């Protein structure tokens, strides 16, 4: 197997872990951890494609940097949302906050 396939399979593994965690976790914090796993897989696939194919190397690396910036912004916002939800509902379990009023 060539290195490109190996790196992409690793990224795919991270995506699979993330999707599994996102659907099986019962708290918002656990889901946030799974999303970070998936974003890491995306970054790994980007850098592997940039480094090991004829694509322009620097663009792939910049893309990964932007993904990291977005992940940081997303984590900040999710932290604030989790704080508000835990104050308002007294819990961060998804089952407690999935009911609509009406």
């Amino acid at each position, binding site marked *: 197997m060539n290195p490109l396939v190996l790196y992409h399979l690793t990224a*795919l593994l*991270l995506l699979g872990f993330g999707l*599994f965690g996102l659907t099986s976790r019962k708290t918002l914090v*656990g889901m946030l*951890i799974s999303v970070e796993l998936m974003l890491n897989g995306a970054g790994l696939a980007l850098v592997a494609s940039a480094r090991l194919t004829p694509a322009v190397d620097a663009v792939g*690396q910049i893309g990964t940097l932007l993904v990291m*910036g977005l992940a940081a912004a997303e984590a900040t916002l999710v932290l604030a949302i989790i704080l508000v939800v835990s104050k308002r509902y007294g819990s961060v379990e998804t089952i407690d906050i999935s009911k609509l009023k009406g």
Partner: protein
Amino acid sequence: MENITEYLNCLVEYLKYPVFGIYLVLIVVGGLTAVLSKNLIRALIGLILTLFGVAGMYFLMSAPFIALMQILIYVGAVTVLIFFSIMLTRAPDGDAGMETDGKKINKQVILALISGLAPAFILGIIIFQKMPGALPLKPETSITILGGLLVGPYSLAFELISVVLFAAMAGAVLLGFERRDKK
């Protein structure tokens, strides 16, 4: 001197796959801990292990700047944020960061397995069938080139990510203030 360089190159060729294997083990163990552990602090430690494994893979692809940014941003900032959110959401009766056992756990885990495996299976088939051969590793791109692209042709993306970060930060502060007013 010639011999030593040749020997070192040979050594690097041989060490490539074992080192990749070590990082892969880090990623797999950390990922499994991150998605399976009932204790969210342990899940967070697993996430950090995975992040270090991915950073190692960046080093292996000779992209050291990305690897250092990975350690700085993810391990340094994002995991601290997640740790804060675990710490601040303690349930009144329980410990901080523990997931309770649900009733329909088996069904949920099976459905989650399907949802994780199905895209991985499809994309895995595509990877095995369509992936082009790998080129030998390019020479390392210097930070000067990356910075030049960020302030040159890709300055719009750079500015937009700044706006997104600012909006996220302002939104977080706003949400935090709203919570304090209501109390």
